[in-house]
């Protein structure tokens, strides 16, 4: 549960890397350059072993594990660094590791670890995250799958080479419909994608699948919900890092800005506000740590829907905490926090996108209530 010294070293080096190589200034330079991330930085990330953090050494990975990669995502979240780390190294790799066939693992994992192949999770279709309502459908025709449908605002959907796509497999005989993940190379005929200009500048795309023909071994096994739980935990790690950085930015301001002849950080009303935010941060951090540990523990400690519960717990709590902190980051900076030249707005915008991704805080509170039996 507690962080061991390897993880401590990893944390130090990851934080140093992103602070130096991909500070918040990179968000602005990517935005100015009209690109969603900097491929050179991604190359460096892969070389540090982060792209293959979940992947065993036999497949060319570094085997750092979920808790370790969570620490890296957290570090990246601190400077809002854009890269395929979350989608590819965390969500994509975890999905293949946990549910891929040995053949799928052997063909995909080494290329994820090297950073050569990037993945993206294509799940939502509407204004809200409602995977049960998925209409994208996969039909079995001979020894092929035919995929039809549209996905809305796929994170990294503009750049990823392999789209991990949720589709409804139509019933055969006495079966009922079921949902399943498919591995769809973005270059397949019938796949078209449109990059969208997101409020936070990240590389999201709408994707259309028109009679896309896939081989029979492109379906992924396992419970479809599991991949989304993992995705939520990855997003939560990122949000936790962003929240801690936004609070640190605010504290710096409180310790340097004077008004009425006092450092504004000496005003008790502001002290109590940030102290409460700090308490919240400790709770959301505990939730995300527990969720990452649960992924490392895998089957063992996760009976009774514990992983689902922890996934919703950390997604909702980190979402709420980042929401509250990013709002107060603007407010406590005053006017300067409202200007585009200041970083406050970057946190606020990214918070909104991450909050919405794979179910809002409200969605996950509802799911948690269901899991409680309410």
């Amino acid at each position, binding site marked *: 549960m507690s962080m061991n010294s390897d993880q401590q070293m990893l944390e130090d080096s990851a934080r140093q890397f992103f602070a130096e190589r991909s500070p918040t200034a990179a968000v602005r330079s990517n935005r100015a350059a009209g690109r969603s991330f900097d491929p050179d930085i991604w190359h460096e990330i892969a070389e540090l072993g982060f792209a293959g953090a979940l992947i065993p050494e036999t497949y060319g990975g570094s085997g750092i594990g979920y808790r370790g990669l969570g620490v890296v995502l957290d570090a990246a979240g601190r400077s809002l660094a854009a890269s395929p780390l979350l989608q590819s190294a965390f969500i994509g790799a975890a999905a293949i590791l946990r549910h891929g066939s040995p053949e799928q693992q052997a063909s995909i994992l080494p290329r994820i670890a090297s950073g050569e192949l990037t993945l993206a999770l294509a799940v939502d279709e*509407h204004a809200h995250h409602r995977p049960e309502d998925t209409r994208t459908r996969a039909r079995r025709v001979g020894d092929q799958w035919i995929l039809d449908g549209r996905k809305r605002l796929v994170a990294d959907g503009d750049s990823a080479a392999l789209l991990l796509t949720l589709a409804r497999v139509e019933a055969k005989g006495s079966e009922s419909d079921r949902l399943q993940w498919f591995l769809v190379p973005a270059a397949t005929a019938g796949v078209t994608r449109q990059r969208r200009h*997101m*409020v936070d500048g990240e590389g999201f795309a709408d994707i259309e699948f028109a009679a896309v023909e896939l081989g029979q071994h492109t379906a992924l096994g396992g419970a479809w919900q599991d991949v989304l739980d993992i995705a939520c935990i990855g997003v939560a790690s990122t949000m936790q890092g962003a929240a801690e950085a936004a609070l640190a930015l605010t504290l710096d301001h409180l310790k340097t800005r004077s008004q009425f002849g006092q450092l504004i950080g000496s005003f008790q009303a502001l002290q109590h506000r940030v102290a409460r935010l700090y308490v919240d941060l400790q709770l959301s951090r505990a939730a995300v740590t527990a969720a990452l540990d649960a992924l490392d523990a895998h089957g063992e400690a996760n009976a009774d829907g514990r992983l689902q519960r922890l996934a919703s717990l950390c997604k909702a709590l980190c979402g709420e905490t980042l929401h509250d902190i990013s709002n107060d980051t603007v*407010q406590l900076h*005053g*006017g300067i926090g409202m200007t585009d030249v200041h970083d406050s707005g970057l946190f606020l915008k990214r918070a*909104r996108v991450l909050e919405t991704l794979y179910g809002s805080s409200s969605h996950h509170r*509802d799911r948690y209530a269901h899991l409680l039996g309410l």
Partner: protein
Amino acid sequence: MNEIEEFRHATRQWLETHCPASMRTPMSEREVVWGGRKASFHSADAEQWLRVMAERGWTAPSWPRQYGGGGLDAAQHAVLQEELRRIKARPPLYSFGLWMFGPVLLEFGNEEQKQRFLPPIVRGEIRWCQGYSEPGAGSDLASLATRCEDQGDHFLINGQKIWTSYANLADWMFCLVRTDTRTKHGGISFVVFDMRTSGVETRPIQLISGESPFCETFLTDVRVPKDQLIGPLNGGWEIAKRLLMHERTNISAEAFGNAAGLDLVEAARQFVGLRDGVLIDTDLRARIARHRMRDEAFRLAVQQARADGARSGAAAATALASIFKVAAASLNQQRCELLMECLGHEGLGWEGDGFLTDGLRATRHWLRSKGNSIEGGTTEINLNVIAKRALGLPDPS
């Protein structure tokens, strides 16, 4: 028929004749008439509507007739507002002169100044902007540092103002300056000057929501005639505070234009959807209901305060302005947040294809709304005011 009913009758008839039909429809932000030398009108009707209203002094209904105002008493003013609301008439003129500078000039200016500045405000000929905040003086407004030196026959001003809304479009500025550096509040004066004066430069500010009407204004060796000092030298702080109160009252009454854009309940029904007549996301539903309840109560409170207005003194008005400002800012921010939640993915766009126009606009409004609790006095400052003025709580000894 008593006098006030006669006034209502006459007003109704006059409006029937003079308010063009196109001026009785909802107005978009672009259609607002701000007047001034660079005035632009989106229609001939808008120009005419301003002209006829200004001629009767009804752009400033309660100002004295000798300064171009309508000279109405409180009861008549209320009737005029009711009749304007009844036909859903657009305000003929938006103006910081009408809302902020005029009221303090009436109270603190000398006769010559009133005659000089008020009538062009009533007619919408001169557009004013507000030179208050400075980069180093935010909430602590009285720490402002823009120097104003007495040069015998004129003042010489050097410094920088920030958050001067529409400075690039305004004709004149009312401005707080430091005329004595030895004392804080007692060293501030209130001056006005033409924005064409040499040494005045403006630069627009880009906000997190994109382009904005806010500017930085640089003042370099700006020469201001001495008859453009309002009130006594070093006596500007009293005027400044009174003006802030008018600003807050106005902001609250407008509630940050919070009827603009998508209706929250409609958006919830459309983007989240109902199941058995109940919003699918019940957690969100509960929060929307809570918000709408506070919002309705706020509107009722503003209405009631307006009706009670005549009876409350200046101290109560100051506290009330702060109360309403705090509530208005928080409610508009809440509304924007809830709207974003309703929109989900549709609220994540910045620009370009693939997003609904309403969604893109809501996203910008949401970002812009974060400033509501900063502009016109931060929520923190207003809570200080409430604690002291309304609740009588002490300062630390």
